Structure formats: C-alpha cells, structure tokens
C-alpha cells in the first residue's frame, strides 16, 4: 500500500483526466453552458420575484458543481474500473492516493472554470444580488465540486454499469437536494428529517451560500459550513480511495 502522495504522479493523472475531457468538446460545452442556461431559466421563472431568484440562484451556484462533478467522476472512474486501465495502473508504482488526488485536482480545476463562469453570469448579467464577496461563493462552489467528485468516485465502486452509475445520481444527490433547505426551511421539516438534514453535506453548502447572500462579512456559520463541506469531501475521497483494490477477483 502506497500511502505517500507523489506530486508528479498526481499531477500527471490530473493532466491525463483533463486531456481526456479535452477530446470530448461536447461534454465540455455541456458542463460549462448548462449551469449558465439553467440560471437564465431560473431568472425568468422568478421574473416577478427577484428576492427568490437571489436565494435560490446563489444556492444553485453551489449545487451545480456538485451534481455535474458527481456524474462526470462516477462515469469516468467506472470506465477506469471496467476498461482494465485501473487494473493496469494497480500493477504500476501508482499510489491509490495519487489516482484519487489526480481526479480531485482535474475536476476541481475544471469546477473552478465552471463555477467562475456561472457565478460571473449570475452576478453581472442576471444581477444576482449578494451581500458578501463573490470569492466566498466560489470557494463553496469549489468545495462542492470536490465533494461531488468524491461521491462519484465512491459510488462508482458499487456500480457495475454506466446505467447503474447514472441511477446513483437521484439516489445520492436528490435526497440531499430535498433536505438541504432549498424547498422548505430545515427547521420546519418533520423532526427526523431535520435531524437527517444536519448530517448531509449539501445542507451546509446551501447554508454557506445563504450566509454570503445575507452577510457582508465572513460569519462564523460560513466558516463552519466551509469546514464541514471540505471535511466531508476529504472523508469521502478517503472512502473512495479505499474502494480501489490492488488485488481483485
């Protein structure tokens, strides 16, 4: 077991993952343009209610990266597992941590691009009105992307086909979406659900976005939210690394 991270191998892996994406311009375009398109849609949905657009729009800026990176990573790592490339890498001097870090770096970097574009359009073209700094929004968006990458990596271990991998999206992401406070305030939910919402990371990312929406300065709650989302991402990444096996049947 190679627990030590090799920067050269992690970077090479990140570069390889980005090169794979670069050969797929349609996926790239969808990843970048769909969030923007949905924000524009939302803008007109709340045509007469700009306050709701601000609240939901800012939360969505954190949710988009998590959903898209979840899907992209779960398919990409499933392919890696089924195509024999993972098996080959496991015969080579590549640590599991190198592989996981490579994926996190690549999709994290791409998520920065995606979130910057979406946040830029929301703030400056659609007039999304937030009290705090856009950088704080970006930070939560980036951490959400890492969380999505981590979850995707983890669930790909339990999917035998791409059909199954895609079905994990509603199974893993939708409950968080329903309970994160976007549809109803969490403290108004049935107490068991409220308790569950306290342990789901998306609740904290939406709360973090709301903090930036309402407060000009960095609040204690924002710091807590960022720490929880980052901690969850790291914990799930470690779980994902644990699902990579050198020896298989």
């Amino acid at each position, binding site marked *: 077991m190679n627990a030590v991270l090799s920067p*050269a*191998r992690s970077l*090479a892996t990140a*570069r390889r993952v980005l090169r794979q994406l670069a050969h797929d311009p349609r996926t790239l375009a969808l990843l970048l343009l769909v969030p923007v398109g949905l924000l524009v849609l939302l803008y007109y949905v709340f045509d007469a209610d700009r306050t709701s657009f601000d609240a939901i729009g800012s939360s969505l800026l954190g949710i988009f990266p998590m959903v898209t990176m979840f899907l992209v990573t779960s398919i990409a790592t499933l392919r890696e597992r089924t*195509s024999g490339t993972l098996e080959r890498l496991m*015969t080579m*001097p590549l640590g599991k941590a190198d592989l996981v870090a490579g994926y996190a770096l690549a999709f994290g970097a791409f998520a920065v691009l995606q979130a910057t574009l979406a946040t830029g359009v929301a703030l400056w073209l659609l007039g999304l009105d937030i009290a705090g700094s856009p950088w704080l929004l970006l930070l939560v968006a980036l951490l959400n992307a890492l969380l999505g990458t981590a979850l995707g990596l983890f669930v790909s271990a339990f999917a035998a086909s791409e059909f199954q991998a895609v079905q994990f999206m509603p199974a893993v992401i939708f409950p968080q979406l329903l309970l994160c406070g976007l549809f109803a305030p969490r403290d108004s939910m049935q107490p068991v659900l409220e308790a569950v919402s306290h342990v789901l990371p998306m609740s904290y990312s939406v709360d973090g976005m709301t903090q930036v929406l309402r407060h000009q300065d960095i609040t204690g709650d924002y710091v807590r939210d960022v720490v929880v989302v980052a901690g969850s991402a790291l914990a799930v990444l470690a779980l994902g690394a644990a699902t990579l096996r050198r*020896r*298989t*049947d």
Partner: protein
Amino acid sequence: MNKSSLDPVSVRAHDLRVTRGRVQVLKGLDFTVRRGGVTGLLGPSGCGKTTLMRAIAGIQARATGTLEVLGRPAGSPALRPLIGYVTQAPSVYLDLTVRQNLEYYAAVLGVPRADPAMGAPPWGHLPAARLGAVSRGRVDAALADVDLTSHAGALAADLSGGQRSRASLAVALLGSPELLVLDEPTVGLDPVLRRGLWELFHRLAGQHGVTLLISSHVMDEADRCERLLLMRAGRLLADGTPAELRRRTGADTVEEAFLRLVDDADDADDAGDADDSAARAGESV
C-alpha cells in the same frame, strides 16, 4: 534488486492455488520460470493462464501457496516498477491519443525525462518538467517497437483491434521491466505483425536480458518459445523446451505432445477416481 539479478529464476511457484467464487482456478501449481528468455504459457482458453499471470503481476486476490517474483513475494510494491503486465484486452484510454496514453503511463512509471545516458539536469527533474515532456525518447522508441509511429496522434478509440493491442503492449515497453508478462499479445494480428512482435520479444530477451512470460492458446506459437509451461484445467501438465516435450511424448509437434499429455493426465485422473493413492502418483507425472 541485486538478489534478483543473481537469481537464475524469475518466477518460483510452490503449491500456488487461486479460488474465484467457489471454483478453484489454479489447483496447486509448482514451477519455475528461468531468468531471461521467452517462456510460453500454453493451454486452452479457461485453463487458468490469465489468473496465473494476474497472480504474478500481484493483482489476483485469494492466491495461496508460495509465489516469488524476482526474489520477492508477488505483489510486493518494490516489484511494481520491474514488471510489465499486458492484459489480453487492451488497457489504454480510448479518449486519448496513442502518444498521450504512453506519456501518461511513462509519468506513472517514473520514466526519466531525458535519456539516462545524458543524465539529469543539475537542478534535477522538476515535477512540472517531468510532466511536460516525459521521456519523448522512450515514448518514441516504444511506438517504433510496436510499429505505431505513424498512428501516434490517433485516438485509441479510432484504432483497429490489432493496433489497439499493440498500443497496450507499447506501454509495457516504456519502463525498464525485468519481467514482461504478456497475455495473448499476438492474438488477432496478421502473420507479418506476429513475426515482427516475436522478433521484438526475442530482442528484448537477448539484448536487454528481460524475462518474458507469454501466454497463448495457439499451439503453433510454441516453437517460438525457448521454454514452455503447458497448462490444463488449473494444473500444470508439463514444462520444458519444445524439443524436450516432443521427445518425451514421442510427438512431432507441440500440439500433439499437448494432446498426449492431456490423455495421460485423464487416464491418471480416472485411475485416481478408483484409488486415491494412484491419483497422487498421477499428479506427480
């Protein structure tokens, strides 16, 4: 590593057993693979060749018994840079070009950027530099070895089946492996390419002292190997040079020798059903 370079044996197995599900795929193998040269692993499909190769590469779960590779237990991390394992199905990234595939694997293998003879720059290899221009020389040489230089810029997905398996083979040539484990590397290739690859295998063995263990279910490739391991149904039927096997069985071809060995083993098994001690004698044939 010093130990392995003195050892005349590359792979040493004793009572090697592998279970998959409830089936015992390898049923107690005892053999050695000599250092250097080309050893053929022959046997019908499903006889356990791939499982044995995976065990040697250190990625087969539930292997028991002794399996030593280059002087270390199979699967030791220290072996990873020294073994090149090529699976039967090409394991390359379909959405990368051939060159990009090789560049990535070269980085994973830690192939130095420049030719070793030229040495590292005085500041050493920066990670970024290693990343940017991973050993163009080694990548080009591997491409030339498998005759894919003209397809270096093609996406692996756009290659023909034979080209793709050659791209997969090229990956194994990137590092400085002491042992190459190749699972049916010539299946589905045309005769000219097959001849070219066998020449390459012998060049690697002769000039670079690499040990090659090559599986095939096509018996007419047997005579290209210096030594053979004949497998059937998870057991080793025989090992030796092609000439020895033919002589021992009085057969004209390795295929015929294999068939005679199969018949002998079946007879022994039948005897074993009647009498347990006879089975033990049969196994030791």
